[in-house]
């Protein structure tokens, strides 16, 4: 009789132990998720980072005639892929305007946008309503997006003054985030 009772006597202890372990694991998971950076804006790995930026010579839809990325050497360029139907793209737009305006006088950084799977009238209306005087490029067959490895929008690439891709940013950007990136890349913390 005692042989059959022994395992039953241990059962509550085992259940308590399993419950404690599960609770600890759950607490760790919550802690990790609570302390990590928001998934909306993050630096992403890309084979392009560290390499010379792909050629970006495109037909300009708004704010200019022809655009050649190589002509922008000597300053940082934020290549921003966006669509007007994309909510995070709408959310980041004011920050892009602020970033472009802040660096317009010094000329040390600029923005160029590439339309991703969107129609031109919608893009025109969007810029008329929300502002932004940087070049907006057409990408009718999606070739620019594919050449840059764009999976979705918004995605942005930061190009250094020497023409190298120094960061790929997935998700909507903020003014502060972009300034932090510039400070980091300039070696200023």
């Amino acid at each position, binding site marked *: 009789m005692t042989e059959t009772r022994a395992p039953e006597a241990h059962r509550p202890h085992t259940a308590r132990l399993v419950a404690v372990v599960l609770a600890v694991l759950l607490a760790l998971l919550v802690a990790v998720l609570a302390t990590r950076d928001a998934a909306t804006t993050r630096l992403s*790995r*890309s*084979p*392009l980072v560290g390499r010379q930026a*792909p050629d970006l010579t495109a037909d300009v839809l708004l704010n200019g005639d022809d655009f050649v990325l190589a002509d922008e050497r000597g300053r940082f360029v934020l290549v921003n892929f966006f669509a007007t139907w994309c909510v995070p793209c709408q959310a980041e737009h004011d920050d892009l305007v602020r970033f472009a305006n802040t660096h317009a006088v010094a000329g040390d950084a600029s923005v160029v946008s590439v339309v*991703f*799977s969107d129609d031109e009238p919608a893009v025109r209306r969007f810029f008329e309503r929300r502002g932004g005087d940087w070049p907006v490029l057409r990408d009718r*067959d*999606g*070739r620019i*997006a*594919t*050449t*840059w*490895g*764009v*999976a*979705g929008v918004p995605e942005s690439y930061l190009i250094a003054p020497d023409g190298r891709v120094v960061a790929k940013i997935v998700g909507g950007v903020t003014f502060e985030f972009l300034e932090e990136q510039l400070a980091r890349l300039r070696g200023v913390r």
Partner: protein
Amino acid sequence: MRRLGWLALLVVLGVALVVGTTDRDEPTEAERVDRIGRSVMCPTCAGQSVADSQTPAAVNVRREIARRVAEGETDGEIRDALAATFGERIILTPPRSGVAGLVWVLPVAALVGALAALALVFRRWRAEPDAVATPDDVAAAERARRAAHVPPPDPS
């Protein structure tokens, strides 16, 4: 006669393999685009190839594949170009080099090892039967038969 049967079986298998693995017709450009598209992951969707997805990114990648096929690039060159911009993870077939290359090597190695082990075991079984009746076994069987009044087995 028995060896001839095995030989015939091998010939049939060999011919079937050659016929089965040889492309009889050159694929069209559309077939190549589809084939390559099935080996490239949709950049924005989980577990779908660009051939199966209608997301803007997948459509863009399909267009890029079609453009490169039309320009005469090989399947490998196209996959390499996509991996160079989207990263290796976009390719659904594992690379043949590096640690991931083990995916290709291990099944073959396991198959060869299993076949070698089977051959070894069969050979051992044939060389030495594992159950040999001792004189005691024979005597015990004889006693049991007599006790049950069973006639001895016919030697023929």
